[in-house]
């Protein structure tokens, strides 16, 4: 006998809901096996990964802090994917957003007033949008696919940041470290809970959930996005502009990623450094799919992914495991999710080896 995959007559909605849970379970199992192979006690390591970060107020605040950029980037990515516009380069828009917003902070220095922080946020959003607009222009004008353009622009953004902090924006009093001066206190986002690092950015991230839901579920522009994504032929028939949708999605997701970027440097970091993101923009792609491209699902997925980042740091300390373990577990999560998703549209059938009757 052999196994064969057969298309279902209609998709299995239950599996669509179960797949993320199944993927988390399988990735946890895989992580346990990985820990055992590396000579650690799997239960202790899993405890350090998933539970230790949550046993204090500070831990929970750190979770919200890490979930903030993931949530902002993932909601933008998900809205784009709904229209079949694949912004793979949220990382780059995040960095450019941080540079633009951070540049405003550095330019005004101690001369800023109440308007400085809003201006920085606007500059961050505009920077992310501008970086994504390059991809939108190349896609709509020359049909260059946004997957490649946004991805490659991410690496360009990293180089731009590196050049700035090693060169023109380097802190003259920083002992030649590649970093800018620290932002003035007036250029930092207010902290929400005294004694933790969770800041106003978390509020923006939380707001993006209902706003994203509203856009996709109840607004005409969201309806257009869904039609363009589900049936491009129907969108042309209905007269929905494909180019307009590409521009809208890339500007929206670029703007959200730029907002995430400025919130990161005006929040926990407080200056520009050569590396300001542990790959939030890329991890947000996993978050978007794990959350079923739905804002509420993405909220939970972002919290889970943030936990993996926190737990990964914990593993370094308590189990002396390399940080790369976090990346491996993220990869397993996406792998198992994509695998489980196959069963939404297909069923496994056991085909007996005996030939058909003659």
């Amino acid at each position, binding site marked *: 006998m052999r196994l064969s995959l057969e298309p279902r007559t*209609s998709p299995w909605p239950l599996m669509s809901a179960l797949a993320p849970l199944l993927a988390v379970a399988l990735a946890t199992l895989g992580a346990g096996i990985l820990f055992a192979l590396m000579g650690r006690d799997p239960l202790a390591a899993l405890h350090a990964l998933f539970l230790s970060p949550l046993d204090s107020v500070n831990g929970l605040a750190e979770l919200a802090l890490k979930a903030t950029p993931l949530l902002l980037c993932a909601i933008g990515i998900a809205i784009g994917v709904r229209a079949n516009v694949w912004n793979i380069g949220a990382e780059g828009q995040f960095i450019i957003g941080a540079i633009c917003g951070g540049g405003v902070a550095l330019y005004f220095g101690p001369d800023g007033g109440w308007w400085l922080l809003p201006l920085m946020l606007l500059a961050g959003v505009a920077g992310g949008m501008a970086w994504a607009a390059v991809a939108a222009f190349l896609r709509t004008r020359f049909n260059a696919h946004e997957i490649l353009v946004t991805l490659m622009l991410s690496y360009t953004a990293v180089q731009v940041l590196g050049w700035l902090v090693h060169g023109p924006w380097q802190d003259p009093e920083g002992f030649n470290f590649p970093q800018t001066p620290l932002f003035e206190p007036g250029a930092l986002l207010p902290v929400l809970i005294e004694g933790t690092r969770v800041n106003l950015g978390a509020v923006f991230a939380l707001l993006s959930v209902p706003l994203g839901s509203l856009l996709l579920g109840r607004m005409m522009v969201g309806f257009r996005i869904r*039609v363009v994504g589900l049936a491009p032929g129907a969108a042309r028939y209905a007269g929905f502009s494909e180019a307009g949708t590409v521009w809208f999605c890339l500007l929206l997701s670029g703007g959200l990623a730029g907002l995430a970027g400025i919130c990161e440097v005006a929040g926990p970091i407080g200056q520009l450094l050569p590396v300001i993101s542990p790959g939030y923009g890329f991890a947000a792609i996993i978050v978007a799919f794990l959350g079923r491209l739905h804002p509420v699902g993405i909220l939970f997925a972002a919290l889970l992914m943030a936990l993996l980042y926190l737990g990964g740091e914990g593993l370094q300390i308590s189990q002396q495991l390399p940080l790369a373990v976090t990346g491996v577990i993220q990869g397993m999560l996406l792998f198992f999710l994509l695998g489980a998703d196959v069963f939404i549209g297909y069923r496994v059938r056991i085909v007996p080896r005996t030939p058909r009757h*003659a």
Partner: protein
Amino acid sequence: MNPVPPRLRLRGITKHYGATIANDGIDLAVLPGEIHALLGENGAGKSTLVKIIYGVAAPDAGEILWQGRAVAISDPNAARALGIGMVFQHFSLFETLTVAENIALGLGTRQDMAALAARLRDVAARYGLAVDPGRHVHHLSVGERQRVEILRCLLQDPSLLIMDEPTSVLTPQETEGLFAMLRRLAGEGCSILYISHKLEEIQALCHRATVLRAGRVVAECDPRTATPAAMAEMMIGGSLPQTRRDPGRAPAGPPCMVVRGLSLPSDDPFGTGLRDIAFALRDGEILGIAGVAGNGQKELLAALSGETLAARADAVTIAGRPVGRLGVAARRRLGLAFVPEERLGRGAVAELSLAENALLTATDPDLAPHGFICFDRLRRFAADVIAAFKVVAPGPDAPAGSLSGGNMQKFIIGREIGHAPRLLLAAHPTWGVDVGAAMAIHQALIDLAATGVGVLLVSEDLAELFQICDRIAVLHAGRLSPPRPVAETTVDAVGLLMGGMMPEAAHAA
């Protein structure tokens, strides 16, 4: 009973797809040299049955006897090895290769191209299938392409040839040629299984008919003696509703759409450009555009609906306003409605609910005031369409993909009419829908025209065009013949135009 065993006999063939039963205990016998019709509506199980015979699908139960011997046909190669050939409704030819190269590919083994071309000419001459083996397929008309497909089968000396709806792409004259070829083939002893729902053709061609309905054999008859009405009733399992047309209708009013000097190159390298199209669609009339598919229908509809823009604004006018440079949404706001050829993926989105699909072409701002969708009003609109057009659907929240083809089409037409258009473009509206739904769609178009709306009907089905149109024009190679009143033209004259004869020549003929 015939002393020789039937060439093909099926016993109790059953096939399930999930919960639906496509074939339910089908018995069938095809004699040597017989042209056997397989008759039934869309969804009756004809395609599944021939897929089983040709080895594309495996039956769940039942047996196949070939020349009296039980056989298992595991794949199309096995079917061809037995001597079964099949011409599909949709051709599988490579446009950029020549006729001979296409046929060599189909034969599978390495071929001496010169010898193959000679053999091709020989077989083609014997059956009157004029095709030049050296020509590239993209130069060929649809009728010629079909000949290539038939030649490909004939080179393998089949003793059973399966033809799936072969005339849907042919002009009446080409159909006659095909029938002559099939009769000759049958005369030489080849059996033919002929699948169709066109009763006149089956009467003209076939010796015996097996009627399928809902996966079962419901009747067998001699089509040469049975009346079309009787066969239609066997097919749909009830009496055929008639479309009503008020004979004392007011004459058509002023033009609602005028097209003048519309020329457009095609985007598709193998598509057909439009050349100097001119016509006027008047309020309250149904104007038919006949023609074999691929003669510019897609391009014409795209240019009229606004999906492609004309070079000049006044090439297309709606109610006197030049719209040639306006897009789809702007033309809709001027009262244009459009029923496209493909239902799912174009006329409707399978994954969205019927209510959401109603929003696809809505111009009424009340359905989405200030950019926010009003789902209550949408549901009510969709429910009204479902009720008015007797769409079989669970309700406005049912996904469009869950409806049958005929019901989806009724919903799309109902939605377009529900948006209160000034004129309606309909592309092949009854293609692939069952007889009952086709009748309902015809009635809807007639009733719409009676309210003063101009209807442009693009169709390949001449019976349909002559039944409901006021005037008919023919599209051939991107040119449109002048529209003529139905009473002043004939199927033959239209057929000649479809084949590319100039109007003058058609009058002389």
